[in-house]
């Protein structure tokens, strides 16, 4: 079985969490304990999740590698496979191949401040590394999370946002786009780049991790530059369409760089060396 690189692990949907309209998180456990024992991954990696008979879909592993025994994924219902996933129930059996791709170099971030900036459905790829850092809290200095969504209902991981808000060792700033606030909203109102500019986190000894829709990323990078962040200290992920996940199916490359093999994690410095094709 191990010889067939297309063969997924069988996973049982242990728990389904409703996150936001059209967005769910699945906690998945390996049906075979041996698979579980030899499975290892690191923050930033992704996998191919499949509903048998419908197909495979690519998303990151949204849980932290420090939490053993299961993996989680969070997805928005948009295409054929994510719609089928959304129709699964607790107890359903899915396929999972992975982990694939490179990692956030969290070991190199020891002793530094971490600034997480996420927008909308892009918190999941970052949640993995956020929890990874929080579970190894003593390794890092200040941890700041700036998270924005279109509206209050579109914020994902609402319970965890509350946890992070209550923690004294995390600074959490949430924001919603103007008009997206509810009457009892106490967070910021404004687009993510604007809020980053307003909060003006220090770039000294700080790593910035930015994940979000292209337009958010586009306007956040210049703000970070103005704050003094160097391109090598800004990390993001690329999410190109993939089929295989391991550099063969031919569609995720940007120039000669394969997002599935050389990414999905890139520094802004690396992105600037790529041709404009992502």
């Amino acid at each position, binding site marked *: 079985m191990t*010889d*067939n690189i297309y063969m997924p692990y069988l996973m049982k949907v242990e728990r389904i969490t409703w996150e936001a309209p059209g967005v769910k998180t699945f906690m998945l456990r390996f049906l075979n304990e041996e698979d579980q024992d030899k499975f290892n991954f690191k923050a930033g990696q992704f996998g191919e999740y499949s509903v048998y008979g*419908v*197909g495979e879909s690519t998303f990151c592993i949204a849980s932290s590698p420090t939490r053993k025994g299961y993996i989680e994924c969070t997805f928005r219902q*948009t295409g054929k496979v994510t719609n089928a996933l959304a129709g699964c129930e607790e107890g359903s059996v899915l396929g999972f191949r992975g982990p694939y791709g490179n990692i956030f170099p969290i070991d190199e971030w020891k002793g530094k401040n971490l600034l997480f900036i996420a927008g909308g459905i892009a918190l999941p790829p970052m949640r993995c590394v956020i929890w990874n850092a929080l579970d190894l809290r003593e390794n890092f200095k200040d941890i700041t999370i700036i998270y924005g969504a279109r509206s209050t209902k579109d914020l994902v991981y609402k319970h965890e946002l509350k946890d992070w808000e209550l923690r004294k060792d995390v600074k959490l700033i949430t924001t919603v786009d103007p008009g997206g606030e509810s009457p009892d909203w106490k967070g910021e109102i404004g687009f993510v780049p604007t809020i980053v500019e307003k909060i003006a986190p220090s770039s000294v000894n700080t790593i910035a991790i930015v994940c979000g829709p*292209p337009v958010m990323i586009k306007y956040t990078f210049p703000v970070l530059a103005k704050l003094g962040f160097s391109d090598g200290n800004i990390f993001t992920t690329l999410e190109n369409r993939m089929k295989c996940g391991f*550099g063969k199916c*031919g569609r995720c490359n940007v120039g000669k760089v394969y997002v599935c093999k050389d990414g999905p994690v890139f520094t802004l410095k690396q992105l600037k060396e790529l041709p404009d094709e992502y």
Partner: protein
Amino acid sequence: MNSDRRLIRKDSLEKLFKALKQNNKTIIGPALQNGKISYKISNNYSEITSDYIQTTQSSKEIAFPRTEKILAYSKNAEGMSVKGIDIKDIPEIVLWGVRPCDAIGIGELSAIFNWDYKDEIFNNRLSKVTVLGFSCSKADEYCFCTSVGGNPGNTEGSDILFTQLGENGDYLAEILTEKGSLIVSMAEALFERAGKVEKEKFLVDVPVRFNHEDVRNKLTTFFESGEWVQQSLKCLGCGACAYVCPTCACFDIQDEAHGKSGSRVRCWDSCGFSLFTLHTSGHNPREVQSQRWRQRIMHKFSYMPDRLSVFGCTGCGRCSRACPADMNILEHLISIQEATV
């Protein structure tokens, strides 16, 4: 292993064919079918033709089928069972009549399927194939193997390479691998000692039209060139070029369900299709045909040599023969080499 050079009489090829059949080999060779030369399972030597420049389809399908089951699943009362494909089901194949540009293409495909993750489905299929190459004594205006490092008598990728020594002549057989020797052992008497033979003088002359290393160097600074738009104005995005190409390996993965069971299949795909890179969000990194054409050329002449140390083109010319809009890759590569950036 050094090649062992033997002579086989023209009339003995049929005897070799029969000997292979007696050894339970499935023989796939070029046959005339509906006006096209196609690789077909051949039960009789008479079905095989030697009158062809090039088969319409390349031989890549032997190791990388157009549509291939990669696993089968079934849902039952106990849960889900999933099975991979079984190598025992794959027959031992002798691929007869492969042109050197197809034989070399197998190595280029293999580079894609074996860098980093090893694709054992591909490797298992390939391990069951013996390649009997036949050198070229004819070429057409689309052939350009010599421009990409090949030649009409290139041995690379063949287990035995046969070269006919003149029209209606006997054949030089270069036995190149263990698999080739095994074939010889099935009909040892047919393979006579060869005297001194200069095979080159029996090969067709394919003029060198461009230098692939020069093209590769040019491409390092060519990404933003307006040339891509010019070259691809005719392109319909039909993907025919990729389907006939001996080295195009891009694929899709799809599920086929039949009630409670079904299979997951890997199918040929093409970077020329507009859906190939389309994101679920609607964003498409290669939105227009010129970007997709650029990807095709860059992948073969820049990315593959950089990442895999092989070029993704064998000069077989099939893409140009197949193109319904008459795009000619040879002309485009020449104009890239000659372009002043």
